[in-house]
């Protein structure tokens, strides 16, 4: 019926099996470091893991990575956890334990964040395809890709609700009776938005015949 006559282009950036293996190794390293953070109970263990993560950050440094941004997130997370510990234990003796929990959580999340930000989604799918069904690999990689979109949606909901009078500013949330506002005004709409986003992504994938066949092939480029 219809033909588009164009000159053929050579394949660009085709992935070799070596590339895929390297991505697989990096993924394995990130997962191992994250798991180690959960079993790390002593300060020396946590310090060693921190040093390894910092070396990893330096090694993979690029425009998409910012230690300042990660440290800012760590600062906020620590603050929230310390406030919760203060409320729970009613004195400062629980603060050190709270700080260690925050430290562990940060070390558990950091390697995965670094891996996702420095590895092409296509390469991740290619690596995952080697060890799991292609549909599962696609779902996993899509979750990684759309996580920032969902965070942006939550941020937008949060900002709108603040100006509608919801008591959800950081200083408001130091009072536990305002947490209900946070759940009501931010968490509930965010869950609704998350489900809507997942539904839209599924329709978009099916609109391009995803799932019509039991298997898929894989784009050879980057």
């Amino acid at each position, binding site marked *: 019926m219809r033909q588009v006559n164009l000159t053929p282009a050579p394949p660009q950036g085709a992935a070799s099996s070596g590339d895929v293996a390297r991505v697989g190794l990096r993924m394995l390293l990130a997962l191992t470091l994250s798991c180690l953070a959960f079993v790390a109970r002593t300060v020396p263990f946590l310090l060693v893991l921190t040093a390894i993560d910092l070396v990893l950050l330096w090694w993979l440094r690029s425009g998409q990575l910012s230690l300042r941004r990660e440290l800012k997130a760590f600062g906020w997370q620590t603050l929230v956890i310390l406030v919760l510990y203060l409320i729970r234990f009613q004195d400062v003796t629980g603060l050190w334990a709270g700080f260690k929990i925050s430290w562990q959580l940060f070390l558990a999340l950091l390697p995965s964040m670094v891996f996702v930000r420095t590895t092409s989604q296509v390469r991740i799918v290619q690596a995952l395809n080697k060890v799991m069904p292609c549909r599962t690999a696609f779902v996993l990689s899509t979750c990684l890709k759309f996580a920032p979109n969902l965070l942006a949606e939550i941020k937008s909901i949060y900002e709108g609700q603040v100006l509608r009078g919801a008591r959800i500013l950081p200083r408001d949330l130091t009072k536990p009776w305002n947490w209900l506002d946070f759940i009501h005004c931010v968490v509930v709409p965010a869950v609704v938005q998350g489900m809507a986003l997942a539904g839209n992504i599924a329709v*978009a994938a099916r609109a391009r015949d995803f799932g019509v066949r039991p298997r898929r092939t894989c784009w050879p480029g980057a």
Partner: protein
Amino acid sequence: MSVILRLKDFTFSYPEAVAPVLNRLNLEVETGRCYCLTGPTGSGKTTLALALKGLLSDGSYDGKIDMPGQTDGNSMAVGMVLQDPEVQLLTSTVGAEVAFGLENLCVSPAEMPQRVTAALQAVGLHKPLDYPVDKLSMGQKYRLLIAALLVMEPQLLILDEPGAQLDPDGLELLRNSLRHLKDSGVAILLCEHRPDELLAEIDIFWQLDNVGSLQQGRYQKDTAASTIQPPEPVCEAGEVLLQVENLAFLGVDDQPVWTDVSFSVGRGSRYALTGLNGTGKTTLLRCVAGFLSPQQGQVRILGDAPDASRLRGRLGCLFQNPQKQIFETTVRAEIAFPLKRFGLKTPEIESRVAEALAACAIGHLADQSPHKLSYGQKHLVALASVLAPRPELLLLDDPLAGLDDFHSLAVMELLIHYNRQHGTTLLWTSHDPEAWSGWADQVLHLERGRLVAR
């Protein structure tokens, strides 16, 4: 021309719906023709498009969809681009995005680069195959999605409301692409309530009405807005409520989004901030409201630097897709929520809610769940809940996106009502420099990273 798709007495109902959204539809689609499906918001245009693509899962249907044209294993019969490009881009690079459909059709990887390159050239998107999708403009993303369908060689291409996503330049490029597609035998179905920019390529209009019936011709209520006279301009604005001086903001990779942005807004006036998609209108509103920190310059809003806790109750914000702020179980409770948080007494809350319901003409929906309303009705509920506290300054981010002219007019009249009745100062953004600009006292236009007054 041969028929590639035929609908016979097709009826569809959503679960729990009282009446079918599509009612005994009959239509034929021929190769190389461009059809435009018009109708008011909520009339079922998207539902019909989803049915043609076979994407309706929940609900009951009757009748037949015939597809006489056969496709081989390496192509598909119907391709569809949905409304929001952002959620349809499933991969991170241009090449991988276009190849996604080929992967699903199990096309050999060796064959992919040639087909991908051809599809990209067909829509005039000249980017390397490893170019990041995130760095494309909205218009480029839309054309990328069309390429991602063309690569699968569809016989019918459905585009759901391209006008809501594309600026005038993007629509011009889309029109050229449509012409080439028609010439090569592809049938096109546009679901669009403002098809004016694409008129030259449209061969046949269809219209859906609110009871799910389809007939030939264009939905005519769209002309209502053009007969309404813009309101009188505000002769003398009062004290300065918003002062923006030499603002600059850096985006991804420290690239300036805009620089040297300065303007001031007087009490009681109406301002429109226009600019193509991606020019940073939302970013500017977020800087004004204090949710983003500019790299340079300063903002004074309602007498001081922006601070959310100080501005609550005095500044109102309606961000894009306002339905997402809805969380209460009734429309009445949704509108009353901010009033309760601002500490108003119960009689005053009831009076303000009644006023907002009446002004928005949604009084009959007061005790219904806002989650079950149509798109346009949800929009009005969200707007009513922002207007009810009578903010001194109201920022609205593309408040008419996705609305037909009937609902757009309702929203604009509502805004003007609050502007006149309560002196609410308005600053709204629009990706279309012409639309409703006559209703503003001043139009500020963002272009190439600079602000120009029109």
